[in-house]
């Protein structure tokens, strides 16, 4: 007991010394992220610029592998008692992070306690909604965001006798164009999709204003159930399975590995993330463009608006007030309008504040780079509804794999689309119930 009191005293004294003498030692802020290539440079430059802008805090950015790797590393570190201050978590992990109330520090609280200016209303509604609780409290700091768009090969369109400046707008038009392209220009592929569940279930549902699950796609509570076996969903997968038989539709895999078939010229239409921009720009040796996602014209209200991909920054719990002050300062630094505008035009990720979007728009940047505005137009197409403001499902990382398995079974023909989607719902629900049980105790 005496020993413990002494220890406590010692730690308190140490903390006092640390907080009383910020001038002697910089406070290190650990930032774990999953950015590679050019985006890794962007992250490092942001950290360097912040470190150069003041003396009290030092942001140390560390690359921790892929999105799931980074998240798992952070979770493991938390369990071991040495979590980073800031952790970049992809959109799929949002529900898991939100549920971990004791493990995270809500960004809204962080900014308020540190006295930094922070206005959730300054973010694009689709962005703010994604990372806020049902009561509108922002829990994480939006960082890199993307959305789904349709990339197409203009040269192939010309070769197939299609108008390269009038891309197909609806799914039936895409199917027709793909058949024509495959018959004339690109014999191995009509169209393809990467991130199969994100494009064909998550974005698909949001874009058609139909629920992925009950309770506003899980935002209003963990007792949500999936609704992805609706007639519209089943029809879409029936179409894809039918077209997959003769390679009019080519399955592009669960992640973005299939994107290479677009830049190589094999697939003339690729529906995937707007973040594909850098790769297309660097590697496509043909004339290309992008357009908004297709929709089924007979679905009421379609197209609605698209939702986000990408990641946000989560602040981990259990750090001291001075460290949190540094994190808050860093976030204030990041939300600066000029910095946001520059990040958008340099990285190809979306601007996340309305002010940054307006600024870039006013500068005329989109006249020469219309492809960076397409996802923004989708994202802000209409005011979000309860089906389109975002989604929040626990265990979504694993559920996406379950969905992929069922979609693959439908495309293989081992299950009918109805069977596959029914199984996707029941297996997904089982995973949701398990998540609900572990978080609501």
């Amino acid at each position, binding site marked *: 007991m005496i020993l413990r009191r002494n220890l406590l005293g010692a730690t308190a004294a140490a903390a006092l010394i640390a907080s009383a003498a910020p001038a002697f030692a910089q406070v290190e802020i650990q930032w774990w992220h999953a950015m590679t290539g050019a985006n890794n440079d962007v992250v490092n430059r942001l950290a360097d610029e912040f470190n150069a802008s003041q003396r009290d805090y030092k942001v140390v950015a560390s690359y921790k592998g892929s999105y*799931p790797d980074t998240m*798992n590393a952070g*979770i493991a570190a*938390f*369990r071991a008692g040495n979590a980073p201050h800031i952790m970049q978590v992809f959109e799929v992990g949002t529900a*898991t992070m939100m*549920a*971990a*109330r*004791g*493990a995270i520090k809500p960004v809204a609280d962080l900014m308020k306690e540190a006295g930094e200016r922070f206005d959730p209303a300054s973010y694009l509604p689709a962005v703010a909604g994604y990372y806020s609780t049902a009561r509108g409290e922002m829990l994480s700091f939006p960082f890199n965001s993307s959305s789904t768009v349709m990339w197409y090969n203009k040269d192939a369109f010309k070769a197939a006798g299609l108008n390269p400046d009038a891309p197909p707008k609806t799914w039936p038009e895409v199917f027709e164009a793909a058949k024509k392209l495959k018959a004339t220009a690109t014999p*191995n592929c009509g169209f393809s999709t990467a991130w199969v569940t994100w494009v064909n279930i998550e974005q698909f549902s949001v874009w058609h204003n139909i629920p992925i699950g009950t309770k506003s796609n899980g935002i209003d509570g963990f007792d949500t159930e999936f609704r992805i076996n609706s007639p519209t969903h089943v029809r879409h997968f029936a179409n894809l399975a039918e077209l*997959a038989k003769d390679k009019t539709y080519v*399955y*592009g*895999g*669960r992640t973005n590995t*299939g994107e*290479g*078939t677009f830049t*190589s010229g*094999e697939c003339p239409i690729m529906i995937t993330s707007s973040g594909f921009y850098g790769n297309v720009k660097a590697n496509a040796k043909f004339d290309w463009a992008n357009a908004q996602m297709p929709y089924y014209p007979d679905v009421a209200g379609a197209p609605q608006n698209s939702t986000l991909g990408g990641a946000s920054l989560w602040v981990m719990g259990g750090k001291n007030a001075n460290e949190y002050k540094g994190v808050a300062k860093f976030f204030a630094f990041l939300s600066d309008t000029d910095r946001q505008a520059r990040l958008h035009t340099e990285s190809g990720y979306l601007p996340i504040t309305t002010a940054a979007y307006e600024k870039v728009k006013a500068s005329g940047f989109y006249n020469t780079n219309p492809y960076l505005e397409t996802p923004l137009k989708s994202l802000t197409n209409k005011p979000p509804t309860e089906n389109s403001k975002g989604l929040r499902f626990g*265990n979504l*990382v*694993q559920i996406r*794999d379950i969905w*992929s*398995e*069922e979609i*693959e*079974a439908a*495309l*293989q023909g*081992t299950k009918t689309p109805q069977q596959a989607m029914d199984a996707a719902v029941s*297996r997904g629900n089982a*995973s949701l119930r*398990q998540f609900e*049980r*572990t*978080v609501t*105790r």
Partner: protein
Amino acid sequence: MERRALFGGKVLPYSLLLPQFAIVVVFFYVPAVQAVWQSMLMQDAFGISTEFVWFENYTILAANPEYYRTMGTTAVFSVLVAFLSLSSGLLLAVMADKQIKGATIYKTMLIWPYAVAPAVAGVLWLFMFQPSLGMLAKALRSWGIDWNPLLNGNHAMILVVLAATWKQISYNFLFFLAGLAAIPKSVIEAAAIDGARPMRRFWTIVFPLLSPTAFFLLTVNIVYVFFDTFGIIDSVTSGGPAGNTTTMVYKVYADGKLGSDLGGSAAQSVVLMAIVIALTAVQFKFVERRVQY
């Protein structure tokens, strides 16, 4: 004749045993007990809330049809990999054991793949057979085979079996080669003088004398396919398509690491551990009897 070391007291022998015993405890018994304990818990990803649920994770597992499918997949995968890697390892070792020019180089080259990490081996094969970029995939296509491991479960299985086999051949080759070197040449020469042809010499003399090595390798290979192949599966197919290449060990990883379901994952690893212990016991009880030392 029995060889025994005689010790005066009990202190020395036990203290000599201690380091080995400590290693076994730290690296085997403690994790195994932890796995059993974890398998009776339900926890959120961060370990903030924990509930002791007795055997509920196991009953959930037993009621899951996907899990039985994984068992079938594992059986197919392990039989194929163990058989292919053992037989090709043996074939290559028999070839290399002959008097040929550049035997050392040949042997060295054959041992190389063993130094390749499973994930890297997976990526190598993935590149060769990637439907749109891979050289071998293009060749298959030009022969009219619609090669598509992304959707065709059999193609995906062939791919992971090839990668896992390729990786293990070197190891088997090395041990078979050592086994062959230990067989006295005089026995084989005697058989040759008696008129036995190479095939007959192999099956009646060499193979029985190799059986201890083969038995050892069988055990090691079973452990390899059950545990070490997950890196290959992860990098090549991630268990897809439609779960066609999800083996038991990959599911342990997918559910525990990606799905943050530590309890369910631990229950699976306990089941897996029991299966491997049972398989090894069966091997020692029945197969070892036929082995001629």
